[in-house]
């Protein structure tokens, strides 16, 4: 067990691609950290630098306080689980799991004991004498886990280990991996492009984009206090409503323009975020999560309202996802991931199932304005000071 410290870690591939750019992150002993970001953002590269599978171009890596920047992978005391499991197809499950112990010259009796114990933890005992070819995807995945945990390494690295499983199994294995990690208390870095996976599994989530670390924090903080437009748009599903806007500080309130309409924010907002005052009369980007957009008919208590045309309703039973046209276009932050549920109307609300909204109708929505986010138009940074 160990801490992992990335200090200005940089990877420049031959050919000049800067896959990871000065990434700094301190990971506590026993912590479960998830690297998340769109495909090609450098998650795998960052992980592989920690593993030693990829040379570190610049920066320093420390594991357990010892510098590991140039240490051979074998000597880093890490174990890795790969996306495609990377099992040895000619060896039985037992031998697959025992392989690292065999190479470490662990005595035979102890080796058998440890393999047995690992197999029990992963519920693999009945499959020990099968070859990987005769296992299902989920079982192979567990063998790969077994091969990693049997070594009792000080750090686990996992690169999209669940991406080849079907949705149901994936949800199950998520909780399994979390459980095992908690039981063993091993420092873990987990890579995924799936923000739901990241948010549900990580003690802390590091969001990457274009090789640059955007924000690393607890899932709840990423959700409620995204550091910039990218994180705001990437975390959460459906994505946060983001649109270009301007604010006007008035005597009683702050007026926020929403297309042709406007909503009022209490002045106390300025006490919380004094920096916002300097945007008085300026253009900026405003964001509000679909969770904070209500059907006004069901929430008479909320007085800040917008009129909008209902373009589409997704009735999911437990809730209704409404795509609305309130007269704003979704703000496309440079390089942000295109969210799949984009209709171009750019404004989504999540209503309770009792809502009587109908597609094609004009309706009134209520906003919980205390949960509004503001971002600088030029830099995309959240205005949070």
């Amino acid at each position, binding site marked *: 067990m160990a801490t992992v410290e990335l200090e200005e870690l940089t990877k420049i591939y031959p050919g000049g691609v800067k896959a990871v750019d000065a990434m700094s992150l301190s990971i506590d002993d026993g912590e479960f950290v998830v690297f998340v970001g769109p495909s090609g953002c450098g998650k795998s590269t960052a992980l592989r630098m920690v*593993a*030693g*599978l990829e040379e570190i171009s610049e920066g320093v890596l420390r594991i357990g306080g010892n510098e590991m920047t140039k240490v051979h*992978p*074998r000597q880093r005391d*890490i*174990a*890795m689980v*790969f*996306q*495609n*499991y*990377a*099992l*040895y*197809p*000619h060896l039985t499950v037992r031998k697959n799991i025992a*392989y*690292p112990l065999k*190479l*470490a010259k662990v005595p035979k009796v102890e080796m058998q004991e440890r393999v047995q114990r690992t197999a029990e933890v992963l519920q693999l005992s009945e499959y020990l004498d099968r070859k*990987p*070819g005769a296992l299902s995807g989920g079982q*192979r995945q567990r063998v790969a886990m077994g*091969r990693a945990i049997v*070594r009792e390494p000080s750090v686990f690295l996992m690169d999209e280990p669940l991406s080849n499983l079907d949705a149901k199994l994936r949800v199950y294995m998520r909780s399994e991996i979390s459980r095992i990690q908690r039981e063993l208390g091993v420092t873990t870095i987990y890579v995924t492009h799936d923000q739901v996976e990241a948010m549900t599994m990580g003690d802390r989530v590091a969001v990457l984009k274009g090789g640059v670390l955007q924000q690393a924090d607890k899932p709840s903080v990423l959700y409620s206090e995204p550091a910039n437009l990218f994180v705001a748009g990437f975390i959460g599903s459906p994505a946060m409503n983001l649109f270009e806007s301007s604010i006007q500080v008035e005597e009683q309130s702050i007026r926020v323009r929403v297309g042709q309409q406007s909503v009022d924010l209490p002045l106390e907002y300025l006490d919380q975020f004094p920096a916002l005052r300097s945007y008085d009369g300026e253009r900026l980007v405003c964001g509000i999560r679909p969770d904070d957009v209500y059907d006004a008919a069901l929430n008479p208590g909320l007085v800040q309202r917008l009129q909008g045309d209902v373009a589409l309703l997704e009735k999911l039973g437990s809730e209704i996802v409404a795509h609305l046209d309130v007269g704003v276009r979704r703000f496309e932050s440079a390089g942000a991931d295109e969210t799949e549920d984009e209709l171009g109307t750019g404004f989504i609300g999540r209503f309770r199932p009792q809502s009587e909204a109908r597609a094609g109708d004009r309706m009134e929505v209520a906003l919980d304005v205390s949960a509004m986010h503001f971002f600088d138009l030029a830099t995309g940074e959240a205005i949070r000071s």
Partner: protein
Amino acid sequence: MTNIADRIENLGSALEPSARLRRLGIGRGAAWLILIAILVVSLFPFWWALRTGLSTNGNLFAGDQSLLPVGYTDNNFERVLGTASEAEILESLGRENTGSFDFLQSLKVSVIVATAITVGQVLFSAMAAYAFARLKFWGRDKLFFLFLSGLMIPPIFTLIPNLVLVKNLGWLNSYPGIIAPFFFMTPFAVFFLRQFFLGISREVEEAALLDGAGNFRTFFGIIVPMSAAPIATLSILTYITAWNEFLWPLVVARAPERQPLTVALGQFTAQQPGTSPDWSGLMAGTLLAALPIIVIFLIFGRKVVDSIGFSGIK
């Protein structure tokens, strides 16, 4: 709706059996006919060799239309194996035995030479192929293409230089001399295995690396077992090629006790001054010489075909 779908399905299955049968009947029949024709064409030479080998040499020309042995005798085989008596030789050959060779000794030479070449060539080719596929070193790809261009050099070009080299090493008439030029690798084998190694998931090797295996261990413990199928195939092809090699042993192995079967058989026919060739004896010898290869093929050929379906996990 389900009703209609069901009915359509039933309709389909009602039509199917007879239609399928008819199609299969014609297709299968044609396939069998073609297969049988190919089989006859490819097996006929073997039968002709066997039939000639079982004939008496003197009667051969009298019954050259016959598909069956002419004047049946198994003396020819005994003659080749060196177990025939003088009288038997006279009877089957019609004269005294002039050309003879030590079949068992040549068989031994063939086995030793082909085995050594196969082991060496497959081992070294595999190692080279792995290096070309995976290890990182300066100029690797250029070196590989240079090496590949060796495929284009006709073997006859290297015959004389090799001969001079082997002679200077004092290896004429010796196993090392016969084996050496084929022992290390051939561009083809390296190319063939490299292609396969390139297809092996890199993750598996990285897993081995993180599990604590070095290059050698990864190669022998993971890569080679995962490549059992292509390595077996290559081994068989190499063995057969080595077994059939004629020109090189002919020039380096003049001494009868170092001649593999291919060369010794050639001597067998060449040693008949002024008489008609000993066709029966030659055919008997040829069949016996081909026998080990046929056996190897019967044993391992099946495995090779099976192993092509060998499923690695990607």
